[in-house]
């Protein structure tokens, strides 16, 4: 399955080419807070993500990996486990002001 070939869902659906500083959630190192930019999944699969707060613009932080290598992320105080296949469909960028950790609304463990 190639996630990249799937239709894009986001506020800027399909109109903006991938920015150089954008990366996929599965490539984000642990404890690095990022901001969700786009969800590259077919529309009917996106709704459960949206309902759980995985929305473009939300801040998330992978806090650990499951034994199977899947990411576990915090999203607004919610601890969520996803599969890495899906993480590969989440397009994110480094959160602004990430270097000043104290402005970070997402509680992430050290």
């Amino acid at each position, binding site marked *: 399955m190639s996630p990249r070939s799937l239709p894009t869902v986001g*506020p800027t659906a399909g109109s903006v080419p991938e920015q150089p500083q954008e990366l996929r959630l599965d490539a984000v190192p642990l404890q690095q807070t990022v901001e969700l930019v786009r969800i590259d*999944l077919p529309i009917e699969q996106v709704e*459960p993500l949206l309902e759980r707060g995985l*929305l473009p613009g939300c801040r998330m932080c992978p806090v650990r990996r499951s*034994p199977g290598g899947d990411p*576990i992320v915090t999203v607004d105080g919610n601890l969520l*486990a996803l599969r890495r296949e899906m993480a590969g469909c989440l397009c994110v960028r480094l959160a602004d002001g990430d270097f000043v950790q104290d402005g970070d609304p997402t509680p992430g463990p050290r």
Partner: protein
Amino acid sequence: MEGAQRPLVALVGPPNSGKSTLFNRLTGLRQKVANYPGVTVERKVGRARLRDGREIDVVDLPGVNGFSARTLDERITRDVLEGRAEGIRPPDAVVLIVDVTRFEQQLMLCEPVLELGVPTLLVLNMSDELDRRGGRIDEELLADQLGVEVVRAAVRTGRGMGAVDRFLAGAVDRGAFPERPCPAVRNVPHGVQLPMVDVFAQRRQRVRALARDARFAPAGPSPLQERLDSVLLHRVWGPLVFLVVVLVVFQAMFTWATPLMDGVEWLIATSGEWVRGALPPSWFRSLLVDGVWAGVGSVLVFLPQILVLFLFLGVMEDSGYMARAAVIADRLMYRVGLQGRAFLPLLSAYACAVPAILSARTVEDERDRLTTIFVTPFMTCSARLPVYALLIAAFVPERPVVGPLMGTRAATLLGLYGLGVGAAVGTAFLIRRTILRGHAAPFLMELPSYRIPSLASLGLRLLDRSKVFLRRAGRVILGVAVVLWLLTQVPRSGGSPPPIERSALGVAGHVVEPVIRPLGFDWKIGIGLVSSLAAREVIVGTLGTINGVQDADEGSLELQAALRRDLDLGGAVALLVFFAFALQCMSTVAVMRRETNGWRWPALQFSYMLALAYLGAYLANRLI
């Protein structure tokens, strides 16, 4: 309120936010509560008595993250809210209860619920946890912003219940609305043309603004949770703990439950004898003791085993570990076409497939849920155990296999468990490539905070499980026992029952004999198979009756000897394989029909499993 209906208030909220806890507190009823998202799978109505003595109806609903109505749970909740559910009036008031430590995500439900236009109370639950972890929120500011009543509560400890009571009193004052047009509750409100993502994004902005204005400060990280997760989800320790937990569960089921089972068995046998001694010999005594008592007793024996399994499952759920176990299991299950949420139903299926199929509702995706339901009956439920135990004791001599650790008998039993798992895996694999083909649904699992399981909640759950189980014993098994007994009594000749071979049951055995000959079974086993179609464990009693063995159970040496005369080794293995695969359980078929809305799935399931059982038994008989 003469003649008028009692008003109804609905408890709505995301999964695991404390709805059932509040429901239990209000109604004194015993809804299952657990620290696992999606525990409540059915609506449940109860009556709450207010502090001023008046009464109101309360309905507890399955938790929802939104109103897309993708899953059965969500449809139940939506239908009740919209007043479209059968047998229940549209709610006159709504209590929206959220986990305040997850404020921003959980408040996303607020707008769609308020759109209903019904008086609403927002309960910010788990405020004890928010306080403990240094979070903060001003509920009065929030109430001003939202224009509805808001209360900060900790339902488990009782904080905030006064405000809930006042709100309910208000609902009673207003009385039950006459029938009103059904409003709709949707993720995307009616008439809104925006793409769904934008609807959510804008709603999120408003929630964020609300949080800011209500001076919301999120709870800090929980050190306990991090410490536990770093072990329980560790690369090495995680799977190891998982394995140990599963092993302990099985160990408990087989060894710790044994003395209890022996106790129950003794009770049934003694009381049966007592009844036999107290009544004069008659057909009625025979029906009561040999039919009803023996039949129901053969099932009651499993109660301790089932309770032990559910006790462990309860501790796992309530502590928050079950959600982690589901995450650990997900990788493996994903490979065979299932998903992590299927772990809980499949584990429960080792006790009984019926509650397992119900709990498959927590599996979010419809295809995943159907797959889970479809493979659940392959798990070795406790009703198969007496059959296994009897045949193993009769045909497998005890010899050490792995030193003193495991003998041939335990190894055979383990092999039968493995056979079930193998069939489940193969079946899941197969149907995901045929009738349930499609993209894998996204897997998302919220990991709840760790909590200490409450004894009350565990106790209630066991009580609930026993009730379900006893009801099954009371209806299905009782019915089967009586029918079987009748079939052994006709046609009567000269006022006494016929010899078993010429009874109606014996004739049935002879009728099926040609079909089961290739499996190595004779007419006696045929009778056993026919009688076990409704419930597997019945075969033990039936074989006892046929062979004229009094009080037959799986430990009866007399019965074992009789079986060795009727079956050769190939036939015995074939019978074991047959029981490992066949769906001989009326309750499972019935619950399946309910959960899949029709006969299609249960019919398919029954034929598939029967075909597999026949084929497997045939091969086993030929090869051995």
